[in-house]
C-alpha cells in the first residue's frame, strides 16, 4: 500500500536531502526548477518529489531524474573469458580503441552507463587477458566514472558528518565522523537533558546533538474507527516532554547554524534550542546580567536618531527638485506622510525584534543561572582551555563534558588546569584510529588509504568541588614517573 502512513519516508517539496553517488555526498534542498550540480552533472530535483527516500535515480538527458527500474544485476563481463596473471599485459595506454570523442558521441546518443561500459569492454584489447579480479576492478572503476545515477537520502548525523569530513573538513575543524560519534556518547547526550554546546563546526555538532535529543518528543497514535473509516490522530506527549534543551553558546554577533538546516529537523525541534552570547557570560556568572525590559522611551529615541541619519541622504537628493517645483507641494506633503508612516512601521518592527531578542536572552539566562546543566560539548577553533574552564561552571556535579581539539597540546593544557583546580574525575585524553576494509572473496584487506588523524578528545565527569584546597591530592591520577623496573605491576 503506497499511502500507509508512508509520508515520512517520501521526498516532499522543500525537504532538505542528501545526494549520494558512491562515497560522495552533497546536502541540498528540494526546490522546484532549481538546477543542481553534483559530481560534474546538472539536473533538476522536481521528479524526486513523491518518491521514497533512498531511491536511486538515473539522470537522463535534460537533467530529468528517473527512478531506476531494476537493480542493475549481471556484470557486463558475463563472457567468463579471463586470464591467469598479468605477465603478458603491457600497459602502453593503447589497449582502449575508443577515443575520448567516441565516448562523448556515445553519451550524446543517450547510451546508459551500463551500455557505455559494455562498449569499453568490447573495445579493449586487453580485457579478456585480465584475471577475473582485474576485470571486476576495471568494471567497478568504469562504473564510478560513467554511471550517471544519484541516490537521494534522508539526512542524518552519520551522513552529514561523513559529507562534511569529505567535502569541507576545514569548516568543521577537521573533526572526523568517528570522533564526533565518541563525543556524542561520552557526553551522554540523550532526551530530556540540558546540554551546553560551544562549537564552530558550521552547526554540525549542534545538529548532531539535537538529533540525539529528539526535539519535543511525542508519539503519534493512529486510531481507525471501523464504521466510517475515520482516522483519528492523537498526539501524546510523554511526561516531561520538551523539558530537554540545547543551549548554544556563541562567540561574536550571532550563532552560526548553517549545518543545522541540512538536518531537516521539523519545526518543533527548534523549540528546545536556545542561544546565549559568550560576551555576557561573565556578567551572568557574577549575577549582574540584566535581562529585564529597558525604558521604552529611551530606546525609541535612539532608534529615531538612527532613522533620521538614514533618511538624511535621501532628503538631500530630493532637495533641489523640491525647491524648484512649487506646484507639486501637495504631492510632496503626501510623500512626507508616507515617509513618516514607513519610519514608524520600521521603528515598531525594530521594537518587536528587540523585545524578542531580549526575551530569548532572558530565557537562555534562566536556563543557565541554575548552574545545573547536564552536559557540555566544546568543538571550536578557539583555544579550548578558557572556554572549558569558564563553561564548566554551568555544569551540575556528576555530569560529563567533552572537549574536541584538532591539536593535542591544547588539551594537555586543559587537563593540567583541571587537575590543579579539582572538581573533575575520570579525565581522559584520547583519539581514535579508524580503518576501513575491503571485504571480497580472496581479496579482503584494509583499504589502501587511511585517515591520518581525526582530532583529539578530552573527556571527564564533574564532581562536587572540594571546599578545602585540592593541593594535597590523596592519590595522584597521573601515574608515577617510570623507573627502570623489569616488571610492571598491573592494577
Amino acid at each position, binding site marked *: 500500500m503506497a499511502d500507509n502512513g508512508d509520508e515520512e519516508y517520501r521526498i516532499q517539496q522543500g525537504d532538505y536531502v542528501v545526494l549520494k553517488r558512491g562515497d560522495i555526498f552533497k546536502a541540498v534542498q528540494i526546490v522546484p526548477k532549481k538546477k543542481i550540480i553534483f559530481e560534474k552533472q546538472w539536473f533538476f530535483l522536481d521528479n524526486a518529489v513523491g518518491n521514497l527516500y533512498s531511491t536511486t535515480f538515473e539522470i537522463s538527458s535534460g537533467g530529468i531524474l528517473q527512478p531506476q527500474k531494476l537493480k542493475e544485476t549481471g556484470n557486463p563481463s558475463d563472457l567468463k573469458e579471463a586470464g591467469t596473471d598479468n605477465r603478458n599485459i603491457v600497459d602502453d595506454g593503447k589497449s582502449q580503441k575508443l577515443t575520448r570523442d567516441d565516448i562523448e558521441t556515445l553519451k550524446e546518443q543517450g547510451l546508459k552507463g551500463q551500455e557505455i561500459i559494455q562498449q569499453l569492454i568490447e573495445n579493449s584489447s586487453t580485457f579478456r587477458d585480465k584475471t577475473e579480479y582485474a576485470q571486476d576492478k576495471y568494471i567497478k572503476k568504469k562504473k564510478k566514472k560513467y554511471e550517471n545515477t544519484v541516490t537521494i537520502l534522508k539526512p542524518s548525523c552519520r551522513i552529514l558528518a561523513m559529507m562534511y569530513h569529505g567535502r569541507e573538513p576545514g569548516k568543521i575543524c577537521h573533526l572526523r565522523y568517528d570522533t564526533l560519534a565518541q563525543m556524542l556518547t561520552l557526553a551522554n547526550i540523550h532526551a530530556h537533558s540540558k546540554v551546553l554546546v560551544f562549537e564552530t563546526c558550521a552547526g554540525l555538532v549542534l545538529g548532531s546533538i539535537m538529533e540525539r535529543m*529528539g526535539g519535543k518528543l511525542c508519539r503519534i497514535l493512529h486510531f481507525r474507527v471501523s464504521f466510517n473509516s475515520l482516522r483519528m490522530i492523537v498526539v501524546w506527549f510523554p511526561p516531561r516532554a520538551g523539558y530537554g534543551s540545547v543551549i548554544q553558546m556563541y562567540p561574536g554577533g550571532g550563532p552560526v547554524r548553517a549545518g543545522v538546516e541540512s538536518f531537516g529537523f521539523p519545526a518543533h525541534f527548534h523549540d528546545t534550542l536556545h542561544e546565549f552570547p559568550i560576551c555576557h557570560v561573565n556578567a551572568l556568572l557574577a549575577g549582574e546580567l540584566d535581562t529585564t525590559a529597558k525604558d521604552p522611551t529611551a530606546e525609541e529615541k535612539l532608534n529615531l536618531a538612527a532613522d533620521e541619519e538614514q533618511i538624511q541622504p535621501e532628503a538631500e537628493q530630493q532637495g533641489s527638485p523640491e525647491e524648484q517645483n512649487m506646484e507639486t507641494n501637495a504631492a510632496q506633503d503626501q510623500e512626507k506622510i508616507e515617509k513618516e508612516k514607513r519610519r514608524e512601521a520600521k521603528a515598531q518592527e525594530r521594537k518587536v525584534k528587540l523585545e524578542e531578542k531580549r526575551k530569548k536572552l532572558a530565557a537562555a539566562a534562566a536556563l543557565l543561572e541554575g548552574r545545573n546543566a547536564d552536559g557540555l560539548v566544546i568543538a571550536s577553533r578557539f583555544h579550548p582551555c578558557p572556554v572549558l574552564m569558564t563553561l564548566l561552571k554551568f555544569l551540575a556535579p556528576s555530569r560529563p563534558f567533552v572537549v574536541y581539539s584538532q591539536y593535542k597540546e591544547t588539551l594537555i593544557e586543559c587537563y593540567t588546569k583541571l587537575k590543579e583546580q579539582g572538581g573533575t574525575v575520570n579525565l581522559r585524553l584520547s583519539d581514535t584510529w579508524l580503518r576501513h576494509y575491503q*571485504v571480497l572473496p580472496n581479496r579482503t584487506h584494509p583499504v589502501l588509504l587511511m585517515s591520518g588523524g581525526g582530532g583529539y578528545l578530552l573527556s571527564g565527569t564533574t564532581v562536587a568541588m572540594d571546599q578545602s584546597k585540592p593541593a594535597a591530592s590523596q592519590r595522584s591520577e597521573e601515574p608515577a614517573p617510570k623507573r627502570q623496573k623489569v616488571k610492571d605491576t598491573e592494577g
Partner: protein
Amino acid sequence: MSFVEYSDCIQDGDVAIVYLSHNSVMPVKVQQGAQTQTRYGVIRHSTDLIGQPYGSKVTCSKGGWVYVLHPTPELWTVALPHRTQILYTTDIATITMMLELKPGSIVCESGTGSGSLSHAILRTIAPTGHLHTVEFHQQRAEKVQEEFAEHRVDHLVTVRNQDVCKDGFGVTGVADAIFLDIPSPWEAVGHAKAAMKRQAGGRLCSFSPCIEQVQRTCQALVDQGFEEINTLEVLLRIHDVRTVSLPLPDFGPDCRSDGVEETSPNYAAVSLKTTTPPREIPGHTGYLTFATKPRT
C-alpha cells in the same frame, strides 16, 4: 535515578557508581541500612549515600574517600559484572552513530550478553523507542532482565530467550536498526531483514572478531540485497599526560674564539609536559560491518 534520565540526589533503591580512582569504579545498589566495603573503608548507605547529591565526595571509615556518581551507560560499561566479553565505549559510540540511533528508534539486538551495549542503546532511544534483545543463554537472559528493572529501563526493552538464527527477533517489519554480535551472523541476516521496516533506510551492524566471519557475513548481506556494505574498525588511543624531566648533557665549558670562557649551564634538566602512550593498548576488538536495507 534511571539510566535514561538524570536526577540530583541519591535515593534508596538507586544503582550508583562509586568512583575510587582512575581505573577503579564499582556499582552499588543503594539500600537503607546496607554497607559497602571498599579499600578505603566502609560506606554506610543510610548516612553517606541516601539524600546526598550525586557527585558528592564520601569519606569512608578508614579515612579514605571516594566519589559517588550518577550511573551512565559509559560508567556501567566499565563497572558492570562481566558474564561475557563486552563491547566498550569506543565501539559502542561508533555503532550508535552509524546505526543512526535516536529517540524513538526501534532496535533489535542479539546477543544481549552482559548488557553493555543494551544500556547504551536504551539511553539513546529513550523515551519513545524500544529495544528487542535476544539472548540464547537462559541465565544471562534472566540476569540482564533483572538489571534492566533495577536500572528503571525495563519499560523500554523486551528480552527474549531464544536463538536468533532459528527464531529471529520476535518482531517483523518494525526495526529501524539491527545489531548482531553472535558467532554466526550470516545465519541471522535473513531474520534481520524480516525484522526491519519495509521502507528503505534501515541500518544493520554486525560485530565479529574474526575476518572469516566478516567475509561470510558480507556475502550473506550481498545475497539478501543489502546496500552500502562497509566494514571498519575503530581503536582507542589513550594519551597519559605526564611531566617528564630530561637531563641536559654536559659537554664541558663553552670556549669562544675570543678566549672568553662561558660557564656551563647551572640547570641540569628540562621539565616537559607531554603525553605518553600506555605500555599496551587494545589492538583489536572486532570488525564492524554496516549495511543499509533497501525497500522490500
